[in-house]
């Protein structure tokens, strides 16, 4: 296996991008990644583009080749749309990583995009629910917020996690977003405001939930041995994991997402590092409780201790393991097909020492992207070289 590095990243802002089509957002993020890499776009051999509900919400399919045409990529480029619910972009990145690691390609563009704000909340909830197992559970009216509410109640029951600890995730991430121009919400919130916000699916309230957003993000990958021809600050992918969980919420093994446990184990084994070696992480906080569960599934904290870690400030920008210094999905927004690469964008900026919320001199960063009812997860470990 060859070592692979990220040589360029690009993104749009996340939020309500009125008047921007799915094509425009994807093309801009991808183009910015190509320009950031300083690579001749005709060198790119493959495009993997993550997207989840573009077909349902905006009626655009065959997205990857459409974007490749707009970008002016060569006619021999292999274009593939990748779907794995909210984990689509994490998987797109991993496809590129594997094909360069294996020697098939030298230059791959990985992107992700979603356009959500043009549809109503109910239409979005319905489209997102397409990621449920229709045969066994979808017909019950379970939603993704509902799934994480089931997890939250069980986590509180098994470990004594408090509703205040869960709410503190929102307070922390909203504070982190103050400096991030890419975030949808750039206004602080308080514990009282989170706890008094409208109930969405008990016990989760409005401020426990990430906002519907538009956005796109992308990265250019190449073999590490030639990465310095393009950038002074290549970011090496030292670990990549992709795990499988359960297609029904009723199969959950405790308040945990098995897919993340396996993806993290795979990525850490490959990287030869441990969770305590990670200096900065972007993890999938689609809901406040999800960040707590992710932090345990990855191994940053012992099972059941994730809530207390938030309360003790261990996950703040100056904490033991800074989590979601970008403001996370809770503040940036969650354009579902783009999120995984949005996280990678933030980590690359941190490892290059260019982030608005810069952690002191980080060497190793981690991005963790989750899809559906904890059904699919990717973990990417990156290192400054």
């Amino acid at each position, binding site marked *: 296996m060859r070592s692979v590095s990220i040589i360029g990243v690009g993104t749009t802002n996340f939020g309500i991008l009125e008047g921007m089509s799915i094509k425009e957002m994807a093309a801009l993020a991808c183009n910015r990644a190509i320009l950031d890499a300083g690579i001749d776009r005709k060198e790119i051999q493959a495009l993997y583009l993550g997207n989840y509900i573009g077909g349902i919400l905006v009626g655009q399919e065959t997205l990857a080749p459409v974007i490749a045409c707009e970008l002016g990529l060569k006619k021999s480029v292999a274009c593939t749309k990748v779907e794995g619910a909210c984990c689509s972009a994490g998987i797109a990145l991993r496809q590129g990583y594997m094909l360069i690691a294996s020697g098939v390609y030298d230059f791959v563009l990985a992107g992700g995009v979603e356009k959500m704000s043009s549809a109503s909340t*109910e239409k979005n909830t*319905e489209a997102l629910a397409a990621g449920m197992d229709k045969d066994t559970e979808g017909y019950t009216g379970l939603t993704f917020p509902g799934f994480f509410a*089931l997890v939250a109640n069980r986590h509180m029951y098994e470990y004594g996690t408090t509703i205040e600890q869960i709410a503190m995730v929102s307070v922390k991430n909203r504070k982190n977003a103050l400096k991030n121009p890419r975030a949808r919400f750039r206004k602080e919130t308080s514990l009282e405001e989170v706890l008094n916000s409208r109930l969405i699916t*008990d016990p989760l309230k409005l401020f426990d939930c990430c906002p519907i957003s538009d956005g796109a993000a992308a990265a250019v990958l190449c073999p590490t041995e030639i990465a310095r021809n393009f950038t002074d600050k290549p970011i090496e992918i030292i670990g990549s994991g992709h795990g499988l969980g359960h297609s029904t919420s*009723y199969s959950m093994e405790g308040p945990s997402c098995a897919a993340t446990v396996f993806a993290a184990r795979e990525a850490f084994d490959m990287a030869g590092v441990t969770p305590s070696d990670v200096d900065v992480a972007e993890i999938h906080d689609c809901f406040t409780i999800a960040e707590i569960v992710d932090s345990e599934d990855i191994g940053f904290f012992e099972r059941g201790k994730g809530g207390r870690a938030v309360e003790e400030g261990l996950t703040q920008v100056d904490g033991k393991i800074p989590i979601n210094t970008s403001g996370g999905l809770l503040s940036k927004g969650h354009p579902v097909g783009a999120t995984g690469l949005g996280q990678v964008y933030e980590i690359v900026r941190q490892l290059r020492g260019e982030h608005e919320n810069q952690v002191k001199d980080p060497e190793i960063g981690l991005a963790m992207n989750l899809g559906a009812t904890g059904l699919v997860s990717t973990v990417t470990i990156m290192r400054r070289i």
Partner: protein
Amino acid sequence: MSRSVENISVEKCKGCGKLFMSPVYVCSACGSEEFEPEVIEGEGKIYTHTTIRIAPEAFMDQVPYHLAIVELPHNLRLTARIDLKEGEKMEIGRPVSCIRKDDVGYWFELR
């Protein structure tokens, strides 16, 4: 007061005897594609629960509605609706009984 408890339809693998919630197409334990119908008693307890207040379009006319993962006999579980009466509250560990099935699946009430 005695109430009638609805049985729950499950499927038993003809290859290895493992029980599955219905529908199942492939036995994840032995690979068999052959199953026979079985019923289990519709008595269980709440593993975890929530009340949905923002729903997909198709369910909007039903909000708020109560959902729980119910632990059933034979280590089976199910995502089901809970028919809560005035003043009742869902709690983890609370015994529940199956009362009916319709197009949103099985309904349970607190016992």
